[in-house]
């Protein structure tokens, strides 16, 4: 396939491509933490486990907030690409708020578990649960910071200057949300059976 590549070069291409490659490595990283959780799922013979410690319904509500933020960030992307700056900023802000609510919910859950002596060192469930959900929460936090920086930069910039940053960070945000779907299923939904 011998085509002249000069005109096809676009900076935006490479930023999002790089993000996708990064997310490939992140998928592998989370896969291993999930495998560890699954490995220990049936190994807990005493003490807290998923069935007796977790509240899938409460976490489910916070999950809805997180997944909705995927929709809102998609709306933000669309507005940005059409140059609708005001709408873009609003959708972006809602995304950040929804993500913050999710993290808040995670924090409440952690506090509740900690008070009930379900800790990272209590047993293998505690270790595996906090590691898996903790790394996810960390990724959500980093995503929120990136979205906030994006929001700040966009506020200061009076036009929608077609930066690739919006698509790139939105791609990361989608990943963080959909990894949670897998984690939520493996950790919370599975505890119901």
């Amino acid at each position: 396939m011998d085509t002249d590549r000069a005109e096809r070069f676009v900076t935006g291409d490479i930023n999002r491509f790089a993000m996708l490659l990064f997310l490939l490595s992140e998928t592998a990283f989370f896969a291993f933490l999930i495998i560890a959780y699954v490995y220990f799922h049936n190994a807990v013979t005493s003490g807290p486990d998923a069935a007796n410690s977790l509240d899938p319904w409460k976490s489910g509500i916070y999950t809805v907030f997180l997944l909705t933020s995927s929709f809102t960030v998609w709306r933000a992307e669309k507005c940005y690409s059409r140059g609708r700056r005001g709408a873009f900023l609003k959708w972006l802000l809602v995304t950040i708020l929804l993500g913050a609510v999710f993290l808040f919910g995670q924090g409440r859950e952690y506090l509740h578990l900690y008070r009930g002596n379900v800790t990272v060192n209590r047993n293998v469930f505690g270790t595996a649960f906090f590691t898996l959900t903790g790394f996810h929460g960390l990724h959500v936090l980093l995503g929120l910071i990136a979205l906030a920086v994006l929001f700040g930069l966009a506020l200061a910039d009076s036009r929608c200057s077609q930066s690739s940053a919006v698509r790139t960070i939105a791609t990361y945000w989608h990943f963080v949300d959909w990894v949670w779907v897998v984690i939520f299923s493996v950790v919370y939904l599975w505890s119901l059976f």
Partner: protein
Amino acid sequence: MSDTPYIPGAADLSIAPDIEARSGLLSWVASVDHKRIGIMYLLSSLFFFGVGGIEALLMRIQLARPNNNFLSPAAFNQIFTMHGTTMIFLVAMPVLTGMANYLVPLMIGAKDMAFPRLNALSLWLLVFGGLLLYFSFFAGGAPAVGWFSYAPLSEIPYSPTTGVDYYALSLVVLGIASIVAAINLIVTIAKFRAPGLTIRRLPLFVWMVLVTQVMILLALPALNASLAMLLIDRLMHGNFFVPVAGGSALLWQHFFWAFGHPEVYIVVLPAFGMISEVIPVFSGKVIYGYEFVAASTVAIAVLSYLVWAHHMFAVGLGHPVDLMFAMGSMLIAVPTGVKIFNWIATMWGGSIRFTASMLFAVGFLLMFTIGGLSGVSFAAFPIDWQVTDTYYLVAHIHYVLFGGTIFAVFAGLYYWFPKISGRMLSETLGKWHFWLMLIGFNMTFFDQHFLGLMGMTRRTFTYPDLPGWAALNMISSIGAGVMGLAVAVFLWNIAASLLRGEIAGDNPWNAWTLEWATSSPPPPDNFKRLPPIRSRRPLWDLAHPENPDWTHGH
């Protein structure tokens, strides 16, 4: 002649655009030019090669005689751990990444890497990771758990000093550096090729680097996850790998080798790539079977994820599991082995120039074959049940990693040194380097096959005076000294050649790929003009208008 497309290069993205043109320490430290970063990778690797080599010499002094007390057990155990960790993570991976960094943009006709600043980040994360690992010596002791740090020995009750913490943190930093560099290289190769350079026309070195970077994206996360889990165990009293608390010692092994096996191919495939550049040029013939060599590389990459538990044959996984992994491990020998035939076929009928580079390439063929064959013996796992964790295994790993990767790196360095520095390395010193290295290496490691078969286990700070053990160990230790001498000759060669070496010119070897179409060293944005690219060997086509490659459909 076609112009290079507009692609932001180092000059556009540097914090101070004129800094790249300057000399002096600051201009190097602040550089985002892939050529300078590549050189700094190589310098870092060379430094740690010296450190790892000294660690090896210290061990061989201790092991030269039975019941020796030159090193205490604690010292020996820290040194063998640091030797392995250094050689894999601070030498093998960085030297290959460094050469890829330097050469890939040149070989694809680009001005720089896709993300020059990210490139600098990878380099400095490497340096930081290396310093972090070695800081452990000053913080209460280096790790003493072996480079793959099995649990629960690596847990707090059995490794109470901070050594293992530094090991884990350092490797996480290095893992991130590798992943970032991998993203950079993949995007560069995918998007920055000069017009006419299709994927099928990629030089084999670039192709193998590409496949390797994809493997890095899928293997290093396994290590990072394992290390995160180990750190949570150690620093937060987690239970992942603590059997008495319900954790699993075997889970560490599975996770580590899920990284560890692809890792050994990660450190060998770019080496195969260098051999695939060197042998054709010095045989005066095109590589025999480019498509097969390229396809076998992908086969190796895929298969490498399916064989990890061949490091665990003695762990008690059961015959069905052992058989599955034996099958995969034997299978992977096929794409690895056929490359040897392709390289020999390239030499066959050629007009071979035995430069120092070619000597190392031929040495590689023989040494890697030995290592590969002993590897097959492990795949027949009842044999593994006898020889794993013995000096037979130590011999195997050094034949593939040193006789393989390092010999190939020497071949590559002698080949590309003129391009990087503008001067030729001394061929005379190069030949001395080669013969001393070949003799020293085989003296050190060939007898270790026998030591293993006589019952000597690895990672032992001393051994009883059983018949024959002392003599073979002494020969091995003397061989290590000869290897040290060979490295000294090499370092002398580099120093002397940088100062007074013959000026190289653009293409001293009459080679064919794009890096030879510019000056030595190349200008900051790499190319003033590119030749037309209609095949895998643009400069061959230019020099042989009567018989260009593209008339053969290549």
